[in-house]
């Protein structure tokens, strides 16, 4: 009798487990900033939504509210059998590494960081190449010969943006001055538009008239302050030209939406591959945004110069230094 009961219990537990198993249903864990940050996370969200409408497969999602939730969220999806599980942002690397080891049968992907495991795909972008292009544009649009860069949290990844930008600026105008500031040293630096705005005002008071923000939601404060103060700004990750039409010079696009879409799709059709995927100008992983909102700001000469640089980088005749390769930048 007892045996029978136990057997029934075990059976029902099994059934419950299989009922919960979400075969080949992808999941995505957004980073601090949230999926509507008009930037990095929102871009990922758009990619996931595109997959959903095309394939009809729903996906699991979670927005991190604090650091401690990262591992919990990823493990929770793994427990339920979601695969591939996509983690947004460099800060999730440790959590992905830990959980991916415990679930070797599931597939994981991380954006902006490398996790070296047989079941993890690491997607990194050549942000320095895209930043180089917008740097050229900034230098040509600047009347004062002084341009600014506002980063979010002070990490090598953001320095990589700044360094690529600086190289682009110098390439177009060798005597240009570049002001580089970081918002802070903690995760709060992605969410402090007030401080972003103050940094922007400080750079404008020193003469900067084009300012590039790579700072998540903090960047919204940068774009606002620049628009208020009559300077041009450059958005990041997603196309932010529409936020202040006619006042945002361009946006450095980082096609995380494409990356997310591809991972989800490869998970569905079985072509998922672990390892490092570096997406640069060549792969259309990064780029710059042109639309009706910035048409009047970008002259044909500017666009020609940027297109030429793009072709040179793809051909390999121009090499943009990657800050993360040696934690150094050749120009300041």
């Amino acid at each position, binding site marked *: 009798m007892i045996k029978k009961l136990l057997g029934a219990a075990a059976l029902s537990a099994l059934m419950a487990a299989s009922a919960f198993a979400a075969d080949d249903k992808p999941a995505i864990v957004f980073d601090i900033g949230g999926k*509507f940050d008009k930037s990095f996370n929102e871009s990922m969200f758009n990619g996931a939504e595109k997959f959903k409408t095309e394939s009809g497969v729903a996906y699991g999602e979670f927005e991190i509210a604090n650091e401690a939730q990262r591992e919990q969220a990823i493990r929770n999806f793994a427990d339920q059998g979601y695969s591939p599980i996509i983690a947004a942002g460099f800060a999730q690397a440790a959590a992905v590494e830990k959980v991916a080891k415990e679930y070797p049968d599931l597939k994981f992907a991380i954006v902006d960081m490398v996790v070296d495991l047989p079941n993890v795909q690491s997607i990194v972008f050549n942000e320095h190449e895209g930043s180089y292009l917008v740097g050229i544009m900034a230098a040509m649009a600047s009347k004062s010969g002084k341009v600014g860069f506002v980063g979010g949290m002070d990490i090598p990844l953001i320095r990589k943006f700044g360094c690529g930008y600086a190289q682009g600026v110098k390439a177009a105008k060798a005597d240009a001055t570049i002001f580089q500031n970081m918002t802070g040293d903690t995760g709060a630096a992605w969410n402090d*538009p007030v401080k972003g705005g103050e940094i922007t005002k*400080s750079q404008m008071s020193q003469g900067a008239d084009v300012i590039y923000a790579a700072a998540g939601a903090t960047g919204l404060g940068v774009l606002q302050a620049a628009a208020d103060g009559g300077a041009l700004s450059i958005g990041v990750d997603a196309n932010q030209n529409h*936020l202040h039409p006619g006042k945002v010079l361009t946006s450095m696009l980082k096609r995380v939406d494409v990356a997310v879409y591809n991972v989800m799709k490869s998970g569905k059709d079985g072509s998922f591959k672990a390892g490092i995927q570096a997406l640069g100008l060549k792969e259309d992983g990064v780029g710059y945004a042109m639309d009706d909102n910035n048409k009047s700001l970008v002259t044909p000469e500017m666009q020609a110069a940027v297109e030429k640089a793009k072709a040179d980088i793809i051909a390999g005749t121009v090499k943009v230094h990657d800050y993360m390769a040696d934690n150094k930048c050749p120009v300041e």
Partner: protein
Amino acid sequence: MLELFFGAETLASTVRLSVPLILACLAGLWSERSGIVDIGLEGKMLIAAFAAASTAAFSGNALLALLIAIMVSLGFSLVHGYASINQRGNQVVSGVAINMLAAGLAVVLGNEWFREGGRTPALSSDARFMPIDIPGISSLYDVPLIGVLARIISGHSLLTYIAVALVPVTAWALSRTRFGLRLRAVGENPHAVDTAGISVARLRYQAVIIAGVLCGIAGTYISTSLSASFVRDMTAGRGFMALAALIFANWRAWPALWACLLFGYLQAMGTRLQGVKFGTFEIPVQFINMLPYVMTVVLLAGFIGKSVPPRASGIPYTKDR
């Protein structure tokens, strides 16, 4: 180098960043002088910032935004008042609860209303408190010294001038009016005030209400003047920095102004000194950012001077002993 430390732009930035600190610090001053500890300054500013930004987004009217923000902040204040005056609860616990409630509620409501992940839409300039240039003052800009002063004084929003004006008002009210003297007495020795036939609860409620109004203005300033939308956790610890300034100022209005300006100056320098080299030496920005807190701790340890809180602060009043 002198321009970097004492230029008009640095000092104007100091004023801008000090305003929320000044308002929150005065709010804390009123509340704590009556014996109610207010850890919830941060939360009240945050919910007011959210209320102001959403009202402005819906109505396009900055003054209406200010009014609604004050009312919402007032509501939170009264909850704190009810918990700590009527229910004689732990004031720190109630304050912390208010901070957490505000942080969560703003994001949940924001997401429900605007579907932007807890953010509010960017405001157009007529829905914001924009900088006001004092008429005729620009002719002074090129005069040495006076020009710097003129540029610091002019070009702020209405709320900035209100905040600065509230400092002498508070100082005067607390030291020269009957209401202010009674309020201070209630924070030092509520039993004596009660014996004189004056209601302790009533006075403390009045103080809590004033604190609510001031936090409402501070929040409005953050989301409609300093920036143009509400973003999650955008007060970024300013309520706690105001508390530090309050301790630093020894619970007095004028010193509170100087303490807030000093902290604001350190914040302004924090963004300006990045990457600036003195010869080969570069000041770490982290060092400047932590200075307000270090200074407060050093003060509390008794090295700079002595800071004495109101005697009955934090202690719920009960008639029977």
